[in-house]
């Protein structure tokens, strides 16, 4: 198959896919094509789009490709959507940030960091499927541990967890630049990734893929 034709197949497959589609799955529909070729073709397509000033591009999210409109068009697109724009409260954002960087994490750990009860906000994040239950910690009481879902990556436009920006190096308030001793102690502590028991399969679709095994991004 000619390269030009391959590129068009990739474009059509991504356009018609109802969810982000992995490069390997795209490669599989064509003879003698591998995932890295697909990646190169996607890059060519995106170059083409930006050159032609199209209103969309191919995004890499949750380990797959998805055609999405460019952010600058949201004022118009919002008006034709059937659902209201996604909104998250400050509490929900803080909680999902803690889960994202500290996963797998127990409710008690989240509450210790935020200093407030997080039961309701965790429940709402679970219902919105941004957070999933990732099993239990094998300690007395076997507390539930939480992790982010595939949907989390899709919503925030991340290819994988490692793509999260690293938590800014400790910076004292008041624009001070010095890295203080107590701060260092915090980061040391955060390195002890807690052990998680085998995941229960109750969660279904959200546990699929490599999302669960992805190590949390470096917090430094």
């Amino acid at each position, binding site marked *: 198959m000619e390269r030009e034709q391959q590129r068009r197949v990739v474009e059509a497959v991504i*356009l*018609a*896919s109802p*969810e982000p589609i992995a490069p390997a799955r795209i490669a599989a529909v064509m003879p003698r094509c591998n995932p890295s070729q697909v990646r190169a073709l996607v890059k060519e397509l995106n170059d083409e789009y930006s050159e032609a000033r199209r209103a969309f591009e191919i995004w890499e*999210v949750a380990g797959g490709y*998805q*055609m*999405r*409109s*460019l*952010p600058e068009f*949201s004022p118009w697109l919002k008006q034709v*959507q*059937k*659902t209201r*724009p*996604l909104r*998250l409260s*400050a*509490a929900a*954002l*803080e909680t*999902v*940030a*803690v889960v*994202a960087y500290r996963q797998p994490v127990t409710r008690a750990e989240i509450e*210790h*960091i*935020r*200093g*407030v*009860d997080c039961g309701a906000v965790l429940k709402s994040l*679970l219902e919105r499927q941004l957070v*999933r*239950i990732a099993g239990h910690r094998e300690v007395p009481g076997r507390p539930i541990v939480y992790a982010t879902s595939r949907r989390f990556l*899709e*919503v*925030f*436009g*991340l290819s994988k967890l490692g793509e*999260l*920006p690293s*938590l*800014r190096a*400790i*910076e*004292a*308030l*008041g624009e*001070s630049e010095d890295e203080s001793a*107590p*701060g260092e*102690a*915090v980061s040391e502590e955060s390195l002890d990734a807690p052990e998680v028991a085998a995941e229960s*399969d*109750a*969660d*279904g*679709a*959200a546990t699929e893929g490599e999302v669960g095994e992805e190590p949390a991004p470096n917090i430094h």
Partner: protein
Amino acid sequence: MSAGSEVFAGASSPYGVSLPIFEGPLDLLLHLIRSNEVDVTEIPIAVVADQYVQTLELMRDLHLDVAGEYLVMAATLAWIKSRMLLPPDPSSISDEQGDPRAELVARLLEYQRFKEAAAELAERPWLGRDVYPAHTPGPEPEPEAEREIEVGLFQLVDAMRRVLAQAGHTGAAHEVEVETVTVRERMLVVMEALRGREACQFEELVREGDLWTSRPIFVATFLALLELTRLEAIGLYQGIDDLGTPSGPIHVRRRQVDAAEDWLERVSELM
């Protein structure tokens, strides 16, 4: 983020007080430290503790719900304040000697980092707020069963709640007669319902003709489904709507034959 939203007290009051909404005691403390323009590692504890208590009083005046966590923090601040006033105890063990503020400072710095991380997440292009996927529903809606996704615990509990709510209207709620039904029995019923066909609907399993079965049977059936899923005898599925959210009836589907065949053995081992 906290400073963005504010509550205004008494539009009728001639003065009008405004107070940012805080995400908790740590958020409030960070706000106070910032407004005192001091470094978090050098908190003037006496000043901040007083301002903290004043803010709590203001919140109470505004009839805001002051949660217990705020009071715990007030106590912590008071304790630190008192410790700061005492000379170091020469007889105490070494690890008691540190700055009494250290633990609080560490928590504040930690919280501050997550607030920043949350702000960064807020600025990303969100799907459904800033960017939208190419929308391809296909020529006509596919039958639900063909675009199945696996059902999570929440959808299952939702379905359960729906069924229970409907059952409330059958009048069966007044029955006092005790029914003895076991999970095992309901597992057999479920597998019987799946005999000779691949799938059935969850709600079908808790109906007898036009009537909903009684609450104990619902519960036992629900548990039976969970148990059978765990034993890999069945799978639970639900369709998704155009927006990708699971909706519609939950389907109970038999797993491949070999797994479905020996489930009974495994049940016997269990009970």
